[in-house]
């Protein structure tokens, strides 16, 4: 008899094997495992897990259907709240959301809600189950800027309400961070992301790639010349930050965005594709978020010895616990409580090392986290040939600077109402990282949903 306090383990590729390939690490549940895990759910009446989900999926209801073997029914329940379940089941930080609130977690393991959601979504895809397209169109046009999680969600919800929706995407492929940022080994591009994008298209949503709003066309033109009655801005926060330390311009220093874009969007790891990437031998990744883990694990798969350089301790790592665990298993080395002072370069302006300083944790700062403080005299040098800067990103000012009457805050984030997504400009809504700064996929989806509702109310009363 299985221990009900323990979750059913999920099958994964062995660390040694997966560290040398780009295939998905987590293999997911099969039906038997999913049924067993689902039967651990207590089916709470006032379920805490639902509160923990930013889009409030009816979790006990879909899990009940999994337990009963009605997977299609489970998929329809999830689809009422989420447009991208195969993605969220994989990349949400469940430990701080739905699973973090699960009653089972008080004494034992919480239910593996993410893995069950993923199982249901994968099953639906493999069995050709599609979300239902609207029967009636209302003839009103809405433009969605950006095809990342917030844009796809907003577009999907509006299409279900009968709107004629067009998504405008700057890159050549739809998906935003799902295609250029999160690596193949966490989120398969063709199998999962492209399939979810197809689902949104099957609702009647049109996607125009290679259109840069603010350059190829402006929001004002979309509204005045092309007949769009409302616009949703989901352009994300894609502008990388650098440290401003000496040597940062050297060859061999990359932003995580560049490194990941070359690999994920341009398939640089695959020699059948034309885009090159530098295969470092010893790589330092500066930062401790999910993007840093993704860059580190990518460099590892390209054959490097990889060090994470992070200025706080393990407890403060902003990355998901599962990703840190995976990175360690694969052999990523964590140099905690260290911070770069300078990147050392050779006579050809190529990285040859990095000068680090040891840190200790001082008093908590305004955010409640203990502030890292340099330990005087503790500087030391390490030989590396590649440095990847993963310090975070901020919103690109291109759209706000070319749209008259669209207010932004000090951090260049668009100011929008949390409940409706409404901005300072009539008919223009916004959500996701463009509003909050870099956050999570599911929060962006939540913002996309809220804005779809806001736009529907606005256009219904017009």
């Amino acid at each position: 008899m299985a221990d009900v306090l323990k979750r059913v383990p999920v099958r994964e590729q062995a660390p040694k094997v997966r560290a040398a390939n780009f295939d998905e690490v987590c293999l997911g549940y099969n039906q038997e495992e999913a049924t067993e895990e689902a039967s651990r759910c207590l089916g709470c009446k006032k379920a805490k897990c639902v509160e923990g989900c930013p889009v409030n999926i009816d979790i006990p209801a879909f899990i009940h259907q999994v337990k009963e073997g009605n997977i299609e029914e489970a998929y329809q329940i999830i689809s009422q709240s989420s447009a991208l379940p195969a993605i969220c089941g994989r990349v949400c930080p469940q430990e701080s959301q739905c699973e973090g609130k699960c009653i089972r977690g008080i004494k034992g393991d919480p239910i593996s809600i993410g893995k069950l959601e993923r199982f249901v979504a994968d099953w639906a895809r493999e069995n050709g189950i599609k979300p239902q397209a609207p029967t009636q169109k209302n003839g009103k046009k809405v433009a969605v800027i950006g095809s990342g999680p917030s844009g796809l969600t907003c577009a999907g919800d509006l299409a279900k309400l009968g709107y004629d929706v067009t998504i405008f995407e700057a890159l050549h492929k739809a998906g935003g961070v799902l295609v250029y940022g999160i690596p193949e080994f966490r989120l398969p591009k063709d199998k999962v992301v492209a399939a979810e994008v197809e689902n949104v298209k099957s609702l009647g949503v049109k996607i125009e790639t290679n259109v840069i709003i603010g350059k190829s066309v402006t929001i004002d033109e979309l509204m005045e010349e092309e007949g769009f009655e409302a616009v949703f801005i989901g352009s994300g926060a894609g502008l990388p930050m650098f440290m401003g330390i000496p040597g940062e311009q050297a060859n061999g220093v990359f932003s995580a965005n560049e490194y990941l874009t070359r690999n994920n969007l341009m398939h640089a790891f695959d020699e059948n594709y034309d885009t090159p990437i530098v295969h470092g031998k010893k790589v330092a990744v500066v930062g401790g978020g999910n993007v840093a883990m993704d860059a580190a694990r990518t460099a590892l798969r390209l054959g490097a010895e990889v060090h994470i350089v992070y200025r706080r301790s393990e407890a403060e790592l902003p990355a998901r616990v599962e990703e840190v665990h995976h990175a360690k298993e694969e052999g990523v080395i964590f140099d905690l409580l260290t911070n770069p002072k300078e990147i050392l370069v050779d006579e050809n302006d190529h990285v040859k090392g990095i000068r680090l300083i040891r840190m200790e944790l001082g008093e908590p700062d305004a955010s409640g986290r203990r502030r890292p403080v340099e330990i005087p005299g503790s500087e030391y040098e390490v030989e590396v040939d590649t440095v990847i800067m993963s310090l975070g990103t901020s919103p690109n000012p291109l759209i706000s600077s070319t749209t008259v009457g669209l207010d932004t805050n000090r951090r260049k984030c668009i100011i929008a109402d949390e409940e409706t997504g409404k901005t300072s400009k009539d008919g223009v809504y916004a959500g996701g990282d463009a509003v909050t700064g870099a956050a999570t996929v599911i929060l962006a989806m939540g913002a996309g949903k809220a804005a779809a509702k806001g736009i529907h109310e606005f256009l219904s009363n017009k």
Partner: protein
Amino acid sequence: MYSILKAEALASNIYLMVVKAPRVAKHCLPGQFVIVKADEVGERIPLTICDYDREAGTITIVFQPVGASTEKFTKLKAGDAFEDFVGPLGRPSELCTDDLEEVKKKRILFVAGGVGTAPVYPQVKWLHEHGISADVIVGAKTKDLIILEKELQEVSGNLYITTDDGSYGRHGMVTKVIDDLVAEGKEYDLAVAIGPMIMMKFCCLTTKKYGIPTVVSMNPIMVDGTGMCGACRLMVGDEVKFACVDGPEFDGHLIDFDACMKRQQLYKTEEGRALLKLREGDTHHGGCGHCGGDK
């Protein structure tokens, strides 16, 4: 897909294409660029806009194959199409956005090197259409590599052609022509130099000598071209700039060209391998991967 309406060789190894891209054609201005990707497995390559026709919805690009990706472009013919073609990117030339009356007061010299003649052309043409006649120096290694001479003749004030080997026009590098013009008593308030980095570097050294403010169009490695990766970053004075969004045009006297040229070398070996593979296929030189190379 973006249809290629015209594809022709302008000179040996320099190609011109007219591409249907209405959204780009409607908004672009001289100085801006596009990113072009040939097919599914292709690389994103930045190319400066050489001409545009708003009515027809077309953009003209000119390129010189230097690696596997641009070599692939040369195989495309009229009737084919690029899978991706995005723009206009970067900031337009300030000559086209500054107050026209102020621009009219300026005596402007353009210096074009090789395939850099292509991005110079739309700027000179735009000025001509606004009643401003600028002098233009065009330099190339040899006569066969001179492009757009007739087109430039129609829109330039004075056009000076020079070849490194003296096979056509004047003899010598473009910097020599700058020296000669100044010696002849010509005065300029602004120079715009576009071409290979080494040529822009020496132009800037020359114009600095005469105190002529100089704008250059930088061509670093790019990936997305929209400001999201920083591959194209460079130092302008003490500031880090992204060429794709802050440029590509900058004050040439503030650029450290040696550093920029080193950055351009980053993928040299990968690029070389890719080009050999494309030209020679699965052969020894193409990187068959079986024989272990020359011993």
